[in-house]
């Protein structure tokens, strides 16, 4: 009986102490999300905002468009191409980050402890550096008079600058650049826990190099791979700053498309519905991640 009361007071104290944080988050993070859900089911106002009439039009308009004259319904090609670009660029970003990130994480994890701390710190600095500054830095490199084109011209490889800035390639390079640390850190954490004696054991049992990689290394570091890929894919999909700066307004991703609905486009319900779609996709990705990582967790 006493134990039960004790447990209840522990829970009560836990909630009471957490209350200020929860109130803050409810006001300025979770609560407003509910308003977005409501807004997605309203009609757009004449200039901006909403009219308080229930409508599923915003959700309909995510994928379809209705002809103004004859009312025929067709797929909204412009929207679809933006979604496809977002998914395509995010997947490509994840792939590039993985190809560069795995060897980097492996390299850091196999250093001596003192050197490892230094290399890790070198990865952490860009990770915490302002995203806009890093985007701006990569812009300086890839623009027509930038480092990359100047070097290529001086080497005699090209005559005129290659236009990379304000293309999808620029957005891809930029996102891979800014999100690379997000791939390296979880991969490092996974490889760091890896007992390298297992590799020797594998060799001692006459496994080939590929065999050791596939049967020993990969299964153990898989949670790190999943974590890194999700951590890169999720912010890439919702990216706003990098495509805005490097895509130059033409090459929109879904984040910029959402902003447009609150700017000149002035369709708040559509913007709200698009935000919800993005949120649902991201939460689904995170759910897959928690599933995979809890399944792979050796402790249960």
């Amino acid at each position, binding site marked *: 009986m006493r134990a039960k009361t004790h447990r209840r007071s522990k*829970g009560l104290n836990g909630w009471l102490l957490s209350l200020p944080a929860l109130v803050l988050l409810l006001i300025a993070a979770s609560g407003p999300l509910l308003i977005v859900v409501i807004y997605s089911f309203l009609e757009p106002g004449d200039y901006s905002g909403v009219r308080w009439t229930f409508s599923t039009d915003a959700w309909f308009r995510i994928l379809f468009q209705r002809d103004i004259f004859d009312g025929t319904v067709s797929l909204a090609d412009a929207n679809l191409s933006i979604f496809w670009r977002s998914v395509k660029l995010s997947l490509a970003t994840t792939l590039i980050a993985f190809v*560069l990130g795995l060897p980097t994480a492996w390299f850091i994890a196999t250093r001596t402890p003192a050197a490892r701390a230094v290399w890790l710190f070198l990865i952490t600095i860009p990770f915490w550096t302002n*995203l806009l500054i890093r985007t701006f830095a990569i812009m300086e490199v890839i623009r027509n008079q930038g480092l990359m084109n100047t070097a290529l011209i001086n080497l005699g490889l090209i005559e005129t600058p290659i236009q990379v800035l304000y293309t999808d390639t620029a957005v891809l390079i930029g996102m891979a650049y800014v999100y690379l640390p997000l791939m390296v850190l979880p991969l490092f954490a996974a490889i760091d826990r890896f007992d390298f004696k297992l590799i020797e054991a594998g060799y001692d049992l006459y496994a080939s190099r590929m065999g050791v990689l596939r049967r020993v290394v990969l299964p153990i570091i898989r949670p790190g791979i999943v974590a890194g890929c999700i951590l890169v894919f999720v912010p890439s999909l919702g990216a706003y700053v990098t495509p805005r700066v490097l895509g130059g307004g033409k090459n929109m991703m879904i*984040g910029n498309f959402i902003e447009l609905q609150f700017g000149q486009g002035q369709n708040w319900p559509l913007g709200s519905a698009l935000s919800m779609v993005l949120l649902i996709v991201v939460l689904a990705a995170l759910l897959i991640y928690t599933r995979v990582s809890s399944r792979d967790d050796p402790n249960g």
Partner: protein
Amino acid sequence: MARRRSFDVTRLPGFTAIAILAFVLLYAPIVTLVIYSFNGSSSVNLWGGFSLQWYRIAFENEAVQSAAVRSFVIAASASMIATTVATLAALGTTRRGKFPGQTIIYVMINQPLMVPEIVTAVALLIFFASIKIATGYTGLGYLILAHSAFCVPFAYLPIRARLEGMDSAMETAAADLYASPVQTFRHITLPLLMPGVLAGAMLAFVISLDDVIITEFVKSAGQDTLPTYMLGQLRRALTPEVNAISTVLLAVTIVILTAFFLMTRKRD
């Protein structure tokens, strides 16, 4: 010798080369940006010798001055608020075993890490727009509130990590010596927890200082912070002034991070 052999075994072909390449790719743009902030030429394309002129121009620019002050005020207030509520939440959710609803608290606290920033930004835009109309208040309060909220998980994680690594024997001893819970907290728990609290406050400060998207959506007219000011500048002709501002922000981040690492490393 045995150690060396195992190293050779673990070294996969090309991995070191790719890793070095990755580090070069990570740092070359940032280093270029920093170097060009000291450019004596007025063009971003030509090198005109070492000069601090762009720092002087940035410092004398009133828009930059007010944006810098605003950034600092918001970051300081937000990190203070976030750290306070995060410390309480960490005390409430750590070292007391599981209690009903704990998962809900975790999910709420970590929510800003999971929801895409653009979605939160849109949600706050809608929410605050109606409050602005209803109350007529358009001050910095909205930005401070928004920043405080998304800083909570960054403040919470180091504090919770510190708490979990803390031995409760000292607190038990204090309680045995008839210290009241408040005295125990004030003289034992809080001093022991302080490195975690400071680390959390630093991360929150850096996160707030760096924010672009939420600030861009929530700010009223004339409420630019340094990042949103820079974003606005990018639409116009590029000048090394933005490089100078970036370099200063970068330096602030590196100083705070170095302090953070030295502080959290002492714990091990």
